[in-house]
């Protein structure tokens, strides 16, 4: 049995079925991310002064990732246009470049996550607070490349309280609490990891689809090029949506 309207537009909607399906899916995605953005706004606005972090994320890396994702949106569109122009070789090149750019995006994200997960705040039993990147840790000692701070409020805006980083050796007997900048650190990191992690999962999903269309799925080009072109188009629509989400995630998490 043939699936109807995979190539020809359906008379009542004017578009082929998969395109309507993708737009309906994207509508549900808008609500999914909308809920997270609204949670962010509520928590951000109601945070007491000096409790919301400023400048914790690398703006140059975030900007670079924004440009990489924008470039991948262009190459995915060019891949679709190449199919429309019956230039299958060009399609392969542009889709391959899209995949590589997505991989670079995820690699930068992984580097940023690693930076946060190896950044520790150590609260000592005498009340002092040490903060910095973990150098080493064993049963007796923890070594940080960081600084002692007067209070946790000083950690919220490192640019306002610049300090020289040095190697700090702390005996585990003195440690009251040892916590990395993971999702459980504070409300900001919880939101950062949830929102950017969900976005990264979307990138991964898009990559799987693109890899299929670039590899085994591209066999359809020989038997039904119009249908294959439509598959590339709707995968591209999803990718543009993922780019759109990042366009708002970047300023919200990195710049404001």
């Amino acid at each position, binding site marked *: 049995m043939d699936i109807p309207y995979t190539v020809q537009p359906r008379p009542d*909607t004017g578009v082929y079925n998969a395109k309507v399906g993708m737009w309906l899916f994207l509508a549900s995605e808008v609500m999914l991310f909308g809920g997270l953005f609204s949670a962010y706004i509520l928590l951000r606005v*109601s945070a007491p002064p000096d409790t919301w972090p400023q400048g914790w994320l690398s703006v140059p890396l975030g*900007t670079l990732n924004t440009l990489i994702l924008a470039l991948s949106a262009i190459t995915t569109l060019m891949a679709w246009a190449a199919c429309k122009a019956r230039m299958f070789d060009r399609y392969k090149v542009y889709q391959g470049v899209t995949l590589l750019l997505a991989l670079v995006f995820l690699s930068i994200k992984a580097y940023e996550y690693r930076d946060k997960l190896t950044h520790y705040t150590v609260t000592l039993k005498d009340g002092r607070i040490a903060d910095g990147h973990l150098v080493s840790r064993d049963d007796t000692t923890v070594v940080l490349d960081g600084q002692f701070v007067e209070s946790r409020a000083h950690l919220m805006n490192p640019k306002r309280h610049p300090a020289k980083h040095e190697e700090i050796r702390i005996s585990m007997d003195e440690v009251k609490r040892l916590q990395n900048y993971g999702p459980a650190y504070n409300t900001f990191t919880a939101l950062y990891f949830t929102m950017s992690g969900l976005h990264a999962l979307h990138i991964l999903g898009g990559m799987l689809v693109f890899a299929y269309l670039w590899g085994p799925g591209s066999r359809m080009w020989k038997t039904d090029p119009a249908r294959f072109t439509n598959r590339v188009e709707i995968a591209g629509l999803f990718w543009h949506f993922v780019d759109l989400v990042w366009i708002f995630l970047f300023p919200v998490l990195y710049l404001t």
Partner: protein
Amino acid sequence: MSDLKPEAFADYARRCWLVFGAVACTTFLMVGASYAPIGNRTVVIGLVLAAAVVNAGLVGAFLMHLLSERKTIYTVLAFTAVFFVGLMGLSIWAQFDHPKF
């Protein structure tokens, strides 16, 4: 879009690169606005988000072809917009809905 002639592909590619240039410019504008020496933080956030909206508009209009879509797609988007505005509106309403004693 109907099938492209190979010579029209080059024109289309040029348009795509122009859009990328515009998206890159608005991205830098967004970052620049966040460093602007404006005392009022709300104004800075407003400027940054305005640049983000322009950026998103470029992606939606040109890359997602929303400038020339079918009525069905606009209908889906209109419903999405209503629900999204409702979601954000309820959040903001809840934020300012403090009891007055």
